[in-house]
């Protein structure tokens, strides 16, 4: 909870920075604030009880703290990479504020215990993201990305709210625990519109995590937004949306899982097939990463489907989101460097192995991790997900996942082949700032460390 308060205060402080001429101090201040939030988060983790606030609307229990930790860590790395983004353009303070408030929304999504805080979390996270997606004002593509994101986001919010209203109509409460009790007491005579409500929320959340067939906005939005904002979307926003998904379906609606599990399995199967086949056909690396994030959404939803209320399920999701966030931050940081020339296709990576061996190596590690090749974090992430699925009746999905990740390896390796085996088109020198090198190196070290010692996270997460 202290993390949430620190971030909110930081956001307000950043708004004042414009007036008090503190622009130069803003980045260190923000980094310090996020570090403080992370530390207070870790201190709350040490406590044995969970923190409940606002009439149990927000509860920082262990899963909430763990996911907040992942989000704060990626946000810290992101801010170091993104200081460039804040230098260009005129409204740097506004951009800081928007990102900070988006983080507040993300933390709320990790910790909600009530439909009200779920809705507010979704909106506090999304509305700044709409603005950030459209933040390249002169670029029509960025405008289009922001607009599409806004329309699709508010469309999904409409569905979410309709679902919440129907569930409220049946149960008479917004409280997640209350709804769970209501399901328990009326398991045999739930009204039809209650099921409809759960269906609507499923559709809305699939929109938010960009799972097929509700994914169509994601590639366009990811491609049109500034690269660094895309990095934020595919790490922080994704982690928060999955934390919310898990909280809602494993804590709220777990008891009628036989109703939504079938639909969820179809969503997962479609995500895996459509995303991997489309990603293989892309010529732009950014668009390929967008499709890859859809296919990772499929994997992460499998954890929710496995529906094991023990720690294993939450643990697998936590590990996956950490591995995916760390890998993506590295990949997007490299893509940002390479894409500075204005070209973000596979050809832009040609001969990077010679032009800048360090970047090429880090990109290769990130790609291998996203593809799930051993000794990287991605391998164990997939392995843990598959373990949770073993005991369920959805073995066909497991087979499909293995086949589609083989297709996935093809397009990730395409980047590596372009970097090491294709001749360089231009001989231009690449200038990489020290801070970028630092973040890229940290992401590689974390990816390899998580891959070599997977127990690092699994052991921490005992409750």
């Amino acid at each position, binding site marked *: 909870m202290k993390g949430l308060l620190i971030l909110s205060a930081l956001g307000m402080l950043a708004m004042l920075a414009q007036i008090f001429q503190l622009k130069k101090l803003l980045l260190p201040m923000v980094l310090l604030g996020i570090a403080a939030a992370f530390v207070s988060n870790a201190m709350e983790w040490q406590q044995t009880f969970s923190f409940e606030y606002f009439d149990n609307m927000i509860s920082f229990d262990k899963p909430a703290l763990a996911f907040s930790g992942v989000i704060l860590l990626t946000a810290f790395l992101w801010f170091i990479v993104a200081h460039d983004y804040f230098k260009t353009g005129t409204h740097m303070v506004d951009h800081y504020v928007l990102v900070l408030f988006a983080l507040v929304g993300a933390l709320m999504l990790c910790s909600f215990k009530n*439909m*009200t805080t779920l*809705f*507010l979390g979704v*909106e506090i996270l999304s*509305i700044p993201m*709409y*603005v950030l997606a*459209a933040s390249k*004002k*002169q670029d*029509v*593509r960025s*405008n*289009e*990305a*922001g*607009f*599409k994101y*806004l*329309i699709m986001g*508010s*469309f999904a*919010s*409409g569905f979410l*709210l*309709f679902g*919440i*209203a*129907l569930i*409220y*109509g049946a149960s*008479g*409460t*917004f409280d997640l625990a209350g709804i769970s009790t209501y399901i328990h007491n009326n398991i045999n005579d739930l009204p039809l*519109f209650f099921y409809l409500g759960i269906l609507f929320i499923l559709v809305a959340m699939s929109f938010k995590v960009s799972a097929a067939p509700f994914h169509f906005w994601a*590639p*366009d939005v990811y*491609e*049109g937004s500034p690269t660094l904002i895309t990095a934020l979307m595919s790490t922080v926003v994704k982690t928060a949306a999955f934390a919310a998904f898990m909280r809602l379906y494993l804590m709220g609606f777990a008891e009628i899982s036989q109703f939504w599990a079938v639909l969820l399995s179809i969503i997962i199967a479609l995500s895996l097939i459509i995303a991997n086949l489309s990603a293989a*056909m*892309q010529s732009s690396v950014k*668009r390929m990463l967008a499709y890859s994030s859809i296919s990772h959404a499929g994997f992460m939803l499998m954890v929710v489907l496995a529906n094991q209320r023990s720690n294993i399920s939450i643990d697998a999701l936590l590990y996956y989101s950490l591995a995916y966030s760390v890998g993506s931050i590295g990949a997007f940081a490299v893509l940002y460097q390479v894409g500075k020339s204005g070209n973000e296709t596979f050809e832009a990576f040609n001969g990077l192995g010679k032009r800048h061996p360090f970047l090429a190596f880090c990109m290769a590690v990130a790609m291998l991790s996203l593809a799930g090749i051993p000794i990287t974090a991605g391998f164990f992430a997939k392995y843990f997900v598959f373990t949770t699925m073993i005991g369920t009746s959805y073995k066909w999905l497991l087979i499909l996942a293995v086949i589609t990740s083989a297709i996935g390896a093809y397009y990730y390796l395409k980047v590596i082949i372009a970097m090491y085996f294709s001749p360089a088109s231009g001989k231009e020198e690449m200038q990489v700032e020290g801070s970028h090198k630092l973040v890229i190196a940290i992401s590689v070290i974390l990816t390899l460390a998580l891959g070599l010692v997977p127990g690092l996270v699994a052991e921490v997460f005992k409750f």
Partner: protein
Amino acid sequence: MINGIPINMYMMLSVVLFIIGVVGVMARRNTIIVFMCIELMLNAVNLLLVAFSTLHGDTSGQVFVFFIMAVAASEVAVGLAILSMIYRNLKSIDSDLLSKLKN
């Protein structure tokens, strides 16, 4: 029963409003009308929440409506700002022109 009108009628009305909103978002090309249709969807939800809130004799549903109104207003504020930016670049707000991002 609320004021002699069964709750089903309220539900039916808000479902009809919601469907009009959904169809409008998907079918219309004028972006301003798309925004209006999204508002319609949200207002259908508001109606439903207020009706259920009265039915259950529980005020939290009505409090939720205030949150929805506030959020809808801020969403439209952002939306119209983005729209005016698009108009400055394209001199049009037809959503068919927004197709720069394709494979």
